[in-house]
């Protein structure tokens, strides 16, 4: 800092002199925001000196610099004095600061009605009511989106040329093709782990060969599709929510509507159709990778060669198991897509809301995928598949 600034950085002070009924405050030095802690202390202790003085004089002659914070603190002291029925006068305001001091005298004049404090029990009950209403609302939002999607699909089927093929292919590339490496890696590891655990525990009964039954049925019926659906919900569902949400934030969705286009048809239908078409493929690829992982462990850890593994597998599983797994995939894709897109449309203006909606989308779609899987298990058991 240059030399000249030292005088400006002088310490703030506040002296109080009483003569008869007149109390005179003399602030001095720098009344600026960087000294705010000191200034608050000074004015706080000055408040206690008000006593029985009838007139309070504020002499700002010794103030070397002042800003909004300093001016407000002096003004607040003045107002505190005036509220006790005292006469307050302010003198010695330097000309270059008079505008600021005058301005500050006008602010904070209006009483802000305090927010009434609520009974904590009522608040809690309101919260509970809101969240259960919210759950009901979630169902409505889901059904709304399903219906909108159905109508958009019906319109598109009537005029097949209106299907956005470029968008559809691009989405399939993004959520399908680009996801294959990670899907293969994870399902391969899951298959290997199941086989290893199976061999380890079945060995005690001498029932090692049944590991093939376990891996085959588990992977084809349940795990293959479930793991892949969860991964797609985390990987592509979140992306859908964030994309549609930020489009909503930047009024791109409104722009579409004003051009006479239906955002469901333009943005959401291609995305969900892409999910429905790709998830079964991913689930198939994932199941194969898991079986491969299981077979590899069976050979390395259980000493069961590939010909035996494949022969056992053919005996253990039937096409039904495979069908059960594959049938579930498109429904899971539909649920993931609808949740992701409708959460995206619920994004409001702030960055925080985008994050929150994306989280909700992933959590909700994973939850629904698992619930759906349970319902399918009951259903297939009752029809004997």
């Amino acid at each position, binding site marked *: 800092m240059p030399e000249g600034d030292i005088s400006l950085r002088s310490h703030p002070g506040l002296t109080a002199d009483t003569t008869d009924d007149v109390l005179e405050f003399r602030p001095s030095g720098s009344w600026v925001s960087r000294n*705010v802690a000191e200034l*608050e202390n000074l004015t706080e202790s000055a408040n206690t000196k008000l006593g029985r003085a009838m007139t309070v004089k504020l002499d700002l002659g010794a103030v070397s*610099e002042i800003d909004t914070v300093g001016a407000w603190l002096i003004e607040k002291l003045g107002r505190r004095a005036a509220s006790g029925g005292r006469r307050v006068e302010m003198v010695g305001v330097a000309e270059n600061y008079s505008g600021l001091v005058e301005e500050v005298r006008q*602010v904070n004049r209006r009483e*802000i009605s305090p927010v009434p404090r609520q009974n904590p029990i009522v608040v809690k009950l309101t919260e509970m009511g809101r969240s259960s209403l919210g759950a009901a609302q979630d169902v409505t939002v889901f059904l709304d989106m399903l219906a909108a999607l159905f109508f958009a699909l019906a319109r598109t089927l009537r005029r097949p040329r209106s299907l956005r093929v470029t968008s559809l292919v691009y989405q399939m590339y993004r959520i399908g093709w680009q996801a294959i490496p990670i899907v293969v890696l994870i399902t391969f590891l899951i298959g290997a782990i199941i086989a290893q655990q199976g061999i380890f525990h079945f060995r005690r009964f001498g029932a090692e060969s049944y590991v093939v039954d376990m891996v085959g049925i588990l992977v084809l019926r349940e795990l293959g599709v479930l793991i892949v659906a969860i991964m797609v919900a985390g990987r592509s569902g979140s992306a859908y929510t964030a994309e549609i949400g930020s489009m909503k934030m930047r009024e791109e969705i409104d722009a579409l509507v004003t051009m006479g286009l239906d955002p469901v048809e333009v943005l959401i239908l291609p995305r969900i159709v892409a999910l429905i078409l790709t998830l079964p493929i991913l689930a198939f690829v994932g199941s194969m990778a898991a079986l491969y992982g299981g077979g590899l462990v069976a050979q390395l850890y259980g000493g069961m060669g590939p010909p035996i593994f494949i022969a056992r597998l053919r005996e253990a599983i039937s096409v039904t198991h495979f069908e059960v797994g594959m049938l579930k995939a498109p429904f899971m894709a539909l649920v993931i897509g609808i949740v992701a897109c409708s959460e995206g449309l619920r994004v409001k203006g*702030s960055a925080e809301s985008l994050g929150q909606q994306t989280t909700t989308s992933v959590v909700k779609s994973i939850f629904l995928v698992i619930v759906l899987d349970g319902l399918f298990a009951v259903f297939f058991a009752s029809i004997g598949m």
Partner: protein
Amino acid sequence: MDERGLSSAIRVTDLVVGFGRQIVLNELSLEVRRGEILGLVGASGGGKSVLMRTIIGLIPRRSGTIEVMGTPLGGADERTTQAVATRWGILFQQGALFSSLTVKQNVQFPLRENLQMSQVLMDEVATAKLEMVGLRAEDGDKFPAELSGGMTKRAALARALALDPSIVFLDEPTSGLDPISAGDFDALIKTLQQTLGLTVFMVTHDLASLNTVCDRVAALADGKIVAIGPMRDLLRSEHPWVKAYFHGKRSQMLQPKES
């Protein structure tokens, strides 16, 4: 204010800024005097915003010096730069209010980060700032998404003024406002500049603001300041771009009435 010190608030000398092969600012020099409102005009994409963002340190420069309130910027000493940063406030074109904080929290944010003050005082100061820019205390509890365009600009200005800066940078403050709101905002800038003793650096295309509030106008063309001075001097400038800018169809209202 320190009258013995330098009379310039910002001094830019031989500034060169470029991206890749393209040179945007070519040995540009500019001086902003203390306590004035300087308007900067230039073609769209001509480097006005680049100049402003270079001064405030968001864009690196290739060569040249920038002094703000007598302190050279951009040296190795990060702390000097930070100390200077508390002496300026910036109003971004879109407001750049933090969307997850309320308006009041937005105004309090610089106070909370830079100063140690009680919550009560911080509330009072924030309300004071909001009232000074013409908002109501109740507006402080709104979120930025709930504000109209004019209110967003005002709230952003309140945040820019939170630390009582000496210099305020305004990036197209009246863009997107109707003529009445724009006029009100101009008047507000003038009033605040006078009461708070601000230096204002304003990038604008609004011919009315240039005419009514700016003490001096600088014209940026071909990466240099080609003309600078009070509005009437610029109207007489012979530089082809400046002539086209101020004597085009849209600038008719600025011309002295003939007949």
